[in-house]
């Protein structure tokens, strides 16, 4: 019964993943260009750039036993954001952009590097202000990401080899954070739990699977906004990945 209740509680979130964003995002920009504040629904457009130094992943256990060992996975995202806001309490957002991943790993005594082509990443999510008192906000965010691409190149000991890896990434993430408004700044901090799988299919006729080393991580950052029209945000992801994210949004 408890499991059923828990699953009901998380049902709206599961299925919907990366940067978490400011927990107070839905209520940060209070005034838009065209849509009056009195309307229940408004929308925002934005841009985001995410540079990941390492996704902090590992090969799944069966592959580690075969002497596969992952050094790191770099990633880079450039995307556009469309967010529908309901009553300055709930954000539903969609993100489409160009993404690529670059795993570096060892197999027995050889060192391999691969780079995916730049291809589309699709992401959808929702963010909810759970609790707000004065300038303090508690919020939650859930998102799901999907990415599929062929490899641009694969090297073995720095020499190109004729191999085509097919990359497939699926990821979901839940984040809970707190934010405090200090004049035009809104610093925030929180915890993100994520589950991701990266499939590297057809590598030397073998299908490889990467999973996260640590599922829980920390995010922190700050937004800057006067409360009208525009908001800028910078965020750092730590522990379960090492990323830096810049984003900007305009409310209409």
């Amino acid at each position: 019964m408890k499991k059923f209740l828990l699953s009901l509680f998380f049902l709206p979130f599961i299925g919907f993943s990366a940067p978490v964003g400011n927990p107070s995002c839905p209520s940060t920009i209070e005034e838009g260009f065209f849509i009056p504040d009195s309307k229940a629904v408004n929308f925002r457009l934005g841009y985001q750039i995410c540079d990941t130094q390492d996704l902090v992943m590992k090969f799944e256990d069966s592959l580690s036993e075969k002497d596969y060992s992952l050094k790191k996975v770099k990633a880079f995202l450039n995307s556009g954001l469309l967010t529908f806001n309901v009553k300055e309490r709930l954000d539903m957002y969609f993100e489409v952009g160009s993404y690529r991943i670059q795993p570096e790993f060892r197999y027995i005594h050889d060192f391999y590097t691969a780079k995916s082509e730049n291809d589309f990443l699709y992401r959808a999510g929702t963010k909810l202000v759970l609790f707000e008192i004065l300038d303090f906000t508690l919020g939650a965010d859930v998102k799901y990401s999907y990415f599929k691409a062929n490899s641009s190149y694969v090297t073995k000991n720095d020499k190109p080899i004729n191999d085509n890896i097919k990359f497939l990434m699926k990821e979901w993430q839940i984040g809970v954070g707190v934010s405090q408004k200090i004049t035009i700044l809104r610093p925030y901090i929180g915890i993100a739990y994520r589950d991701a799988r990266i499939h590297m299919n057809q590598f030397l006729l073998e299908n490889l699977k990467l999973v996260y080393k640590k599922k829980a991580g920390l995010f922190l950052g700050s937004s800057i906004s006067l409360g009208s029209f525009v908001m800028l945000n910078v965020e750092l992801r730590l522990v379960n990945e090492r990323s830096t994210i810049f984003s900007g949004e305009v409310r209409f």
Partner: protein
Amino acid sequence: MNKIIIFILSAVFYVSGFATTVGNPLNPEIIEEGFFISPTSWINFRVGYEGDFISDARLYNALQKGKIDNFKKDINSGTLTLNFQNRMDVFGVVGEGRIRSDWRFENLNAVSRLQLESNYRLYWAAGAKVILFQWCNTALSTGGRYTFMKPSISYITIDGIPQDKGNSRIKSKDWQIDLGLAHRIDLFIPFIGVKYLNAKERVYDSPVVISADNQNYVNMKNKDRFGIYAGCSLSNSKYFMLTVEARFIDEEAISVSGDLKF
């Protein structure tokens, strides 16, 4: 229909190529009050910093029509801007920059991968920006810029093996023109625009083969000439401004800059 949607989305979001900082279209007017020069004066000047970090310049090998897998540039520079009537900026940029690149090439029926890195060497640029039209807090402007650097090579590796670099160098020169729109919202001045970029890179005088057909040089050009830039400046109209800018489609880059008006 699907193809049209994919094309439009690709045009908007696909990262590619190579270029240099564009700046806020409203730059000539953002800082109204300087430290020493009166706002009524028809000429004033600004001094600033510009950091330009190109994570992929999306170039192709013009000789063998092959792909350049990575072309990165890190540039740190100082800027001097002359401003006329808060309508026109003429600027010069001097700093130092480094290039890192890798590509694959086929020679004698074998595919090899080359990686190189240049030393930090002199980088310079010059350009101008003019506000064409201004309506309330919105401005439309155009500008242009030419940049040049010719660093020596720090190292070259082929298939992971270090090679003799000799007197090899990279000559990098590009010019671009831009058209952008900015809107002031109190402290914030977000902007967006399009630009046309012509970028040319040449690695030459290498003592080792670095391209197909036993060539010891490589000519590179940018794959896509048109790109989009977007960003936001922050200023209270007095003394200083800060700008963050991202550029995509014809390149994949982010730049940060700050200016002080005197």
